[in-house]
């Protein structure tokens, strides 16, 4: 079999056009769930799920296949890797900025465990940056988000929880 005339960087660039189905402003590469790309006779993409029961997992895998097939790559294999488990620390700086602009407060980095055990710190409003915010519901439209409101600009917003 002839080696593919495509580079790993090219595949990564194509993957950066694949949107997360629940937060379409984020590419899957921003989210940090693409754990590896290997290009040999075929292309192997390693993806990690965010939560065990995340219903987006299968949709994302299909989107990756569709995108790479669309660029003419035929032999694409998706490998699901669980270890090490995904953490919100893997969301890129660019991804955090995209989240904020979209109206979702990004997770603070490096605080995962402390936050899980002791509750949230002050979360900045993505609209006006005020720290005077309060939790409306610890659980939101998806497992990864909580609902907040800003006490200054009065806007409700979602917060991407640390995990």
């Amino acid at each position, binding site marked *: 079999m002839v080696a593919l005339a495509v580079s790993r960087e090219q595949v990564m660039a194509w993957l950066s056009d694949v949107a997360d189905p629940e937060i379409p402003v984020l590419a899957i590469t921003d989210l940090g769930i693409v754990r590896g790309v290997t290009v040999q006779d075929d292309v192997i993409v390693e993806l990690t799920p965010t*939560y065990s*029961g995340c219903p987006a997992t299968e949709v994302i895998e299909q989107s990756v296949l569709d995108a790479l097939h669309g660029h003419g790559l035929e032999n694409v294999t998706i490998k699901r890797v669980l270890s090490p488990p995904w953490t919100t620390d893997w969301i890129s700086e660019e991804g955090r900025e995209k989240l904020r602009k979209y109206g979702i407060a990004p997770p603070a980095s490096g605080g995962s465990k402390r936050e899980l055990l002791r509750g949230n710190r002050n979360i900045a409003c993505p609209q006006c940056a005020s720290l005077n915010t309060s939790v409306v*519901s610890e659980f939101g439209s998806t497992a990864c988000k909580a609902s907040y409101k800003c006490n200054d600009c009065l806007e409700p917003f979602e917060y991407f929880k640390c995990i």
Partner: protein
Amino acid sequence: MNSHDSLMAYVLRLADNALILGQRMVELVAAYPELEEELANANFALDYLGQARMFYTYAGELEGMGRSEDDLAFLRDENEYRNFLLLEQPNGHFGDSIAKLVLFESFYLLQLEALVHCSDARVAEIAARAVKEIRYHLRHNTQWLIRLGDGTEESHDRAQVSIDTLWRFTGELFAPDEVDNVFEAEFAGPDLFRIREQWEKDVAAVLQEATLVVPGEQWMASGGKQGRHTEHFGYMIAEMQYLQRANPEATW
């Protein structure tokens, strides 16, 4: 029992526990007393179903007979399930559900923390994924038990009845059988004796904060791990399996 069989049996128990508790929680979707809890319950149930899928897929691979996660989840009979009796108990009222979750998750968290260090790489990585989720669940559910126990006179009394009623199903969590023993020896699995000591401390601390009393020594029900279930179980899986039994190999 050889090490392979103990691994397969152990993984299947983990899968059954996650599925059966998840299914009980699914029964409560759209029936919770307030929106925040509705969302919490649905999200937590989804975590359990996700964990069940990973464990079933692995159990099917270990079995080597070509059974998929769906085959194992939906096409087995009552006496083939190996979940704890505690998890199949009917939901009851909100306090019953919270009490069940605190009793089980206080155990499951310790079990997963131990499994992260077991020598089977696949079990260890699924456990590493799941432990973060269960830590979060337990924090939330513990806060609720404290609020109910230390709340009004009525919520206090009802929460105590919930704990007292479910207590007899907790002995089974710590009663090792051959599967547990071989898995512990061959794969550096959890030491149930040590887990029990820690669980008793953790649960006593929560109950104390909730102004609830730890039930005394009593007769403990068992049999779930060997496939002998309570009368509620058959009704539950009849509903759960209806679609797959009526329409074999249906996909959507």
